[in-house]
């Protein structure tokens, strides 16, 4: 099988509209979470905090491309543009059938969907719907808009597995390249902050509700005072490329994708399942031909839900014991859901490049039920030979991807 490397990275988060702003925010211990006072109008929505990404320079996208984009697709397109520039993809490669695009999201364009229903429902009137409503709503809105904008002619696909969407996009891209189906794929995901999504978690008592007036203190992954997740805007795109192809064109290589696994827990729709997580991480290690001792960092899914953080800690402890540093980035940028896997993978790659591991923000007192792993409480200098990125989604869907330093 062919080797797969990462040659480009692009992100948009609440900490800014590029990877540097994200890394600067992590280094400074900065939170992008803010109060969402307008959400008070929604009865039953008790979580009024979110991490809002700045929407900058969207008019640089020509109107004919932008007209079919909701906020989610604009964020995704900007991340994709950054990644293409970072990877120095030449135009003839970008538009060749050897290059594809796989982008995930939780449910497509939520604001566009909301707008369509607001037009349609009061008077049962479809005649007032814009021709663009469908293109802004659909579950593949990000991938199709990115592909149209960049002129991509290879595989164009959308993954949709809520919080595991973008890690599944990366995993699928990895498998397509190593099997020789594509040479380069833009992989990732995007998400737009919207009360529909935050409300979904709130209804299930999984969203943070006690810090509406102190937004910077939440979410608190692994902390004994954690009270749930905080949703955030975001987009992340990685350029996956076949190793020889990247080497021949002299591309900078940020790391090698060593292994990937995704699996169902088959147990519960909403509750995290420790056994499923263990199975997923073990399968990824086996796929990567690595041992637990080869892993120097775990970028946890850990969203600050009571049950999810505990299950992930127990799963990590069973495989790795307490010798591998573990941190969650949700405290900085909220849970970017369908974008989170790609965004946090991009940040982890940069940590591998810099030899630093950033801590879990807002972790003050570790919950005794999460105490079996090595939590990163302050930034540590450490060589990362290989790391695991986890994403666990509603529906009992698990995904783990392992990256390592490139060794010829």
């Amino acid at each position, binding site marked *: 099988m062919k080797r797969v490397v990462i040659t480009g990275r692009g992100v948009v988060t609440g900490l800014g509209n590029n990877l540097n702003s994200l890394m600067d925010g992590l280094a400074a211990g900065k939170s992008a979470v803010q109060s969402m006072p307008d959400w008070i109008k929604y009865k039953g929505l008790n979580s009024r905090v979110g991490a809002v990404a700045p929407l900058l320079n969207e008019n640089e996208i020509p109107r004919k491309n932008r007209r079919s984009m909701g906020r989610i697709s604009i964020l995704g397109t900007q991340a994709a543009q950054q990644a293409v520039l970072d990877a120095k993809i030449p135009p003839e490669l970008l538009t060749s059938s050897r290059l594809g695009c796989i982008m995930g999201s939780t449910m497509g364009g939520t604001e566009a969907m909301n707008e369509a229903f607001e037009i349609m429902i009061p008077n049962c009137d479809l*005649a*007032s719907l814009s021709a*663009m409503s469908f293109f802004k709503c659909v579950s593949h809105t990000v991938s199709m808009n990115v592909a149209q904008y960049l002129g991509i002619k290879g595989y164009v696909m959308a993954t949709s597995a809520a919080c595991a969407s973008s890690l599944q996009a990366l995993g699928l891209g990895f498998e397509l390249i190593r099997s020789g189906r594509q040479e380069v794929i833009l992989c990732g995901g995007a998400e737009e902050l919207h009360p529909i999504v935050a409300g979904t978690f709130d209804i299930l008592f999984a969203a943070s509700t006690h810090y509406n007036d102190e937004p910077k203190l939440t979410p608190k992954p692994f902390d004994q005072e954690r009270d749930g997740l905080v949703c955030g805007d975001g987009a992340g795109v990685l350029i996956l490329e076949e190793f020889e192809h990247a080497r021949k064109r002299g591309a900078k290589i940020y790391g090698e994708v060593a292994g990937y696994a995704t699996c169902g827990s088959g147990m519960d729709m909403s509750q995290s399942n420790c056994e499923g997580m263990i199975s997923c991480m073990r399968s990824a290690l086996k796929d990567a031909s690595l041992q637990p001792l080869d892993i120097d960092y775990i970028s946890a899914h850990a969203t600050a839900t009571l049950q999810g953080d505990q299950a992930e800690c127990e799963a990590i402890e069973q495989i790795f014991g307490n010798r591998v540093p573990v941190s969650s980035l949700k405290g900085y940028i909220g849970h970017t859901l369908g974008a989170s896997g790609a965004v946090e993978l991009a940040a982890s790659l940069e940590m591998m490049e810099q030899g630093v591991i950033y801590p879990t923000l807002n972790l003050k007192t570790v919950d005794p039920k999460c105490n079996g792993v090595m939590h990163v409480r302050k930034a540590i200098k450490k060589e990362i030979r290989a790391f695991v990125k986890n994403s666990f989604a509603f529906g009992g869907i698990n995904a783990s991807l392992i990256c390592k330093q490139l060794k010829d």
Partner: protein
Amino acid sequence: MTEEQIKKMVNEVFEESFEIAPERLKPEAKIFDDLGLDSLDIVDLVVALQKKLKVQIREDERVRQIRTLGDIYNFILALKSEGYVSRG
């Protein structure tokens, strides 16, 4: 509603919905060739004109004959004369 008011409102639709600079909005401007709209834009043009001018034109066969911005002015004026544009 006067002819000038109708022209102003139609032009506003082109500026707001399709980001076309006012100086390009001349009566002889062809909607596809000169103003750069395409078939998807026409759907939204109809929706925006209906909303702005409080008219129903989607099912009107005369829409298919429109080629220029001036054709739109004349079409709306014709609707006005037929009593379909009620606000003045």
